[in-house]
């Protein structure tokens, strides 16, 4: 277990193994996303109340899932970097922030677009929309803090601490806005209860969620690899990669 942990901390090892994983994840993500989108747009029946506009759920809900799990992953990776001084965890935490922020943005925008035909307004100050907006602010704060430091190590530790503080705050923010004002429909998918929608509606949703997660894994690995190359540019293994690429081209 511990040896595996140390191995995982080695940038060179991670670079090699992720290079082998990315194609698999990318293919899976592509298949799931295409299958899910086609199913969602063409074969799923329309909602009896909302008609066809509900089809936005197939990107809105997965994006919202990803936005939240991305934050948790960022905070956990940050904590690992903070406690065990693991460089790879620092890099992963840093790379989570822009991806997570982009999916939070996607969840917000699709929510707004969906809200227009359903509630009659682009934006309502509803509990869940508001807490997603706060989540976006938290992400942006982490990104801003990352770029404020010149020292990488310091930047990683400071933003890890900030994301942990944010993590403690997320449930508080969630409940505070929930008690404050709510209009949003209850959660569409929960782990504990049977879904209220018919199977031909939630099966493609599940496929889309899985596709989004695979996609997240792919782009996170891609970003992490580039960041690792950048940080380790003075080491032998990175020079080797660059040299191989040069001679391969020539």
């Amino acid at each position, binding site marked *: 277990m511990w040896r595996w942990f140390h191995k995982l901390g080695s940038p060179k090892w991670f670079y090699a193994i992720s290079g082998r994983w990315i194609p698999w994840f990318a293919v899976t993500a592509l298949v799931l996303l295409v299958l899910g*989108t086609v199913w969602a*747009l*063409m*074969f*799923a*029946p*329309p909602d009896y109340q909302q*008609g*066809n*506009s509900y*089809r*936005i759920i197939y*990107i*809105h809900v997965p*994006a919202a899932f990803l936005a939240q799990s991305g934050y948790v992953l960022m905070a956990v990776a940050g904590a690992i970097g903070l406690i065990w001084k693991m460089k790879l965890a620092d890099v992963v935490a840093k790379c989570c922030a*822009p*991806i997570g922020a*982009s*999916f939070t*943005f*996607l969840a917000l*925008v*699709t929510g707004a*677009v*969906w809200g*227009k*035909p359903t509630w009659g307004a682009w934006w309502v100050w509803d509990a869940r929309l508001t807490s997603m907006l706060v989540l976006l602010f938290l992400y942006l704060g982490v990104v801003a803090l990352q770029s404020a430091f010149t020292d990488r190590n310091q930047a990683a530790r400071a933003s890890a601490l900030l994301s942990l503080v944010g993590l403690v705050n997320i449930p508080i923010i969630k409940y505070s806005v929930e008690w404050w004002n709510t209009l949003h429909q209850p959660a569409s998918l929960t782990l504990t209860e049977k879904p209220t929608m018919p199977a031909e509606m939630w099966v493609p949703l599940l496929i889309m969620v899985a596709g989004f997660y695979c*996609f997240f894994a792919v*782009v996170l690995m*891609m*970003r992490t*690899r*580039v960041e690792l*190359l*950048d940080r380790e*540019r003075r080491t032998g293994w*990175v*020079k080797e990669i*660059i*040299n191989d*690429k*040069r001679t391969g081209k020539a």
Partner: protein
Amino acid sequence: MYFESFSDFLAMGGHAKYVWIAYGIALVVFAFNILAPIIKRKRLMAEQARQLRREELHASGS
């Protein structure tokens, strides 16, 4: 297949604007996430290759 025809599919039962805007933005977000690391990687590789070449020249010159 739920829709009768392709134009029916595009119309989305009158909600075309909303559904296609949402899916379009999703596409943009996906593209951004894929392209950002690729572009960064290209730039980094080119820069490092230049750096290495300079170092080699320097080493052979001296």
